[in-house]
């Protein structure tokens, strides 16, 4: 780690102000940021700890589940109200990383980071979630702008995320054998916004919607509806664990299994 200054503001306004300085960096659960600092891959002059802003919490209405940005993955997974209203979301949170990571890592950190293999971006995109920040609300469709890139300004803080509750939904992921992050993760949802299929882990630009699958599933909500619907390899990642062709294949397998699971 390189040296940096540290502050833990008590109000959102103070936090935004602190983040306005040069090379300031927000810290939530630290599950991404701290390893990066330890490896000397990032050199912020100031680390702004968001832990004092009271951004954790879960609210459930008949239409939506709203989760504060600082809510840990473990809290989402363990929430009886989330499990009841939107079981696929609780299940997704329960499948992130390991116990330690889930106890520290947060929803806001995950979305802000937009790791191409992260899980939360898939549910956010598949439910057209609304991302509330310190200055506006952003629809998920416009939020994710490529690998590790989002619509957030440097001094903009996610405060909460609202997920519209779908009638049917499920998430299936095929884990990278080493990191156990999603090598391919597919979230399927059928709800007020129609059918939406979001794919994580596979795209060179991060999470994306699979419109061919969406159209097929609009016609018939069943695994068989995806038979013969191709996933083009263009734009998919190829690495030492999986070629683009293998990822394209896995997207089909995971999508079918997700639809079957969603019922």
């Amino acid at each position, binding site marked *: 780690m390189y040296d940096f200054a540290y502050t833990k503001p008590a109000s959102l306004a103070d936090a935004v102000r602190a983040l306005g300085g040069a090379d300031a960096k927000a810290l939530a659960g630290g599950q991404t940021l701290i390893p990066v600092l330890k490896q000397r891959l990032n050199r912020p002059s100031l680390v702004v700890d968001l832990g004092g802003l009271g951004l954790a919490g879960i609210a459930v209405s008949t239409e939506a589940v709203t989760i504060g940005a600082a809510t840990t993955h473990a809290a989402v997974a363990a929430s009886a109200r989330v499990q009841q209203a939107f079981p696929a979301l609780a299940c997704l949170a329960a499948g992130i990383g390991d116990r330690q990571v889930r106890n520290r890592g947060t929803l806001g950190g995950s979305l802000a980071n937009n790791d191409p293999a992260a899980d939360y971006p898939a549910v956010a995109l598949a439910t057209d979630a609304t991302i509330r920040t310190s200055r506006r609300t952003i629809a998920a469709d416009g939020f994710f702008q490529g690998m590790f890139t989002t619509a957030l300004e440097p001094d903009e803080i996610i405060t909460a995320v609202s997920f519209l509750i779908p009638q049917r939904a499920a998430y299936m992921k095929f884990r990278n*054998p*080493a*990191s156990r992050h999603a090598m391919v993760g597919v979230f399927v949802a059928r709800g007020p916004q129609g059918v939406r299929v979001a794919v994580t882990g596979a795209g060179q630009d991060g999470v994306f919607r699979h419109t061919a699958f969406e159209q097929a599933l609009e016609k018939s909500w069943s695994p068989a509806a995806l038979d013969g619907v191709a996933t083009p390899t263009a734009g998919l990642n190829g690495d*030492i*664990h*999986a070629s683009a062709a*293998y990822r394209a*294949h896995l997207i089909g*397998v995971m999508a079918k299994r997700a639809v079957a699971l969603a019922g």
Partner: protein
Amino acid sequence: MTKFGIAQSVRRVEDPRLLKGHGTYTDDITLPGMLYGVVLRSPHAAANILAIDTSAAAATPGVLAVLTGADLDIGPLPCIVSLTNRDGSKQYTPPYPALAGDAVHHVGAPVAFVVAETVQAARDAAEAIIVDYDILPSVTDLATALDPDVPQVWDAAPGNICFDWQTGQQEQTDALFAQAAHVTRLTVVNNRIVVASMEARAALAEYDAATQRWTLRTNTQGGWLLKDLLGKAVFGTGPESFRIITPDVGGGFGMKLFLYPEQVLTCFAARRLGRPVKWTSDRSEAFLADTHGRDNITLGELALDADGKFLALRSRNVANMGSALSNFAPFIPTMAGSGVLASVYGFQAIYANVIGVFTNTVPVDAYRGAGRPEANYLVERLIDRAARELNIDRAELRRRNMVGPEAMPHTTPTGKVYDSGEFRLVFDAALKTAGWAGFEGRRAEAAARGRRRGIGLAYYLEATGGGPTERAEIRFAEDGFVDVYVGTQSTGQGHETAYVQLTVDRLGVPGERVRIRQGDTDTIPEGGGTGGARSLYSEGQAILATAATVIENGRRAASEALEAAPVDIVFEAGRFAIAGTDRGIGILELAATQRARAAAGEAAATLDAAEVAEIKSHTFPNGCHIAEVEVDPETGQVALLRYSVTDDVGKAVNPMIVRGQVHGGVAQGFGQAVLERTVFDPVSGQLLSGSFMDYALPRADDLPDIEVELIEVPCATNPLGVKGAGEAGAVGSPPALINAILDALAPLGVAHIDMPATPERVWTAVRAAA
């Protein structure tokens, strides 16, 4: 039976210390005035160094030294094996300096060593060093390293060949192949392994200018080798100028046997600066700078007669050495590996040719099993292939060719003499334990769920090895404890428990009063260290011999104390007594009396003793591994559902520890067979699987309960009847697992897959066969 008796599953006495955080590992030690070293490593796989500018680094606050290759007036790290090639010439041993001279030959090669008051300052300074590299093309992949147009790692090793070695009976083997009714041929890959011990390597050196001696605290598998190599080949000051202390060690698996550049560098810097210097590897460095394991590509051929009897075996093994030769590297695929090619089967002749190859990668050396897993993998894959080709049941083909107990001692074509072995008996028990006969029902049940289930077996045999002698010393300490000084080195195996059991068995003292002392070359003058599954049978013999001398010493002392002739003194259950009477004295009491008298200047001999046992023979643990897997044909994912091992490791001094060793070995074998893939970028030579994000180690949830059944066929060449058990699990598991995967995929037409059987590989094989 006492609480610490032999053959009991005594709870490990070291566990409370190690599991509750009371262990002391090298990095836990801080000495007054200690400095910290950081290694600047080559970012290139092959490059000439045109210039190194250390001025900014040297000016960094807190920095005391910035060393480069030009500063080192010492010898290179030695390779202690020198093979003779087929044509009579010698292997090529390239220079292996602790810091690069005018060239680097692998990513991670040490280029400079920065010593500072803090690790942070040393890191900052290392980043400030400017190295002018002339980057050269590199070769990292063993599969292409022998090709005609690839980059050459060393000018003095044309074709990247380090050695071209052979063993066995070439003419006879060729003749048997010529007359064979059937020949099975197969090329297999033993994938390159990153060892990844839980505790990373570390070294803490101090130098005493008055005595001109170093004390080096470092995590080893036995400090005596290091003392010798540092004192002779590297510093030339003589082995006696080094004291090596090995604190607790968190895993070694062979990788911590060797002398490494960082140990040399801390010693060098400690002498130069007159202050202790510590270096601790981080995980990223461990990937780049610890020796790797395996990395062989082997063509095997099996000749059979019309009855399915094995006639001969022929192999050509291409083995990656890396860019330089680590201490034992050439020995592993040659003497160690080829030595067990006969396994448990009767062959008339064997011929093996091994070609050692240089690549621009970190040196490769011993890893759990060291050569023997590779050889067993080849043999057991070949037999499954032959069974399929000949339509003979794979179990039956093995049984038909096993050497029977009546043939013991049995000499193999590669010159090994097996003292004992009940291979068919163990084999039949294994099939029963695994439920082999009922498998087809389980296959059908899985198929109904869309899964491909397969069962695979491997019968392994390994030759345990290591130094030709081992020493033990037993001292009755003033505080009433019995100290047993050993020349082996535990890295977590449970030695402290097993040796206590032996001591209790021989001396009848309470186990709580026995302390095992290890890891200090000043208090223990010689030791063979731990490697090749040698510890219990080597050190055990030494402990037995020493205990016998203690008892003789005691008999003499007791005869004096009890006023009886020595021949009338019997020793039983920890007491010396006059035969036929109830007059006697306990060994601890007698030892204390004798020590006190000797200390008071009386002419009394203590009971203390030291003996060096000559280790005359290998042991040959063997057994059968049976794995049951399910493959998801849509994704290529392999799940291990059932695993059993029926093992003959001779007498089990502590069955629980044996089982634990086998469990760990099976886990590592699963890693090799299914998960662990070391990948270099073919152009840049960078290690692409350079962290746990990309290098998959086995996790607890990858493994089912592993059943271990022990069938004790006592070893005939040591008085304990024990055979080595530490490596065995990693020897039998890779072939059992791959044979199981291939059994699962056979209905889909897949006949071959290489390790590791990653999801993508399995999926690709299934698609290619369709």
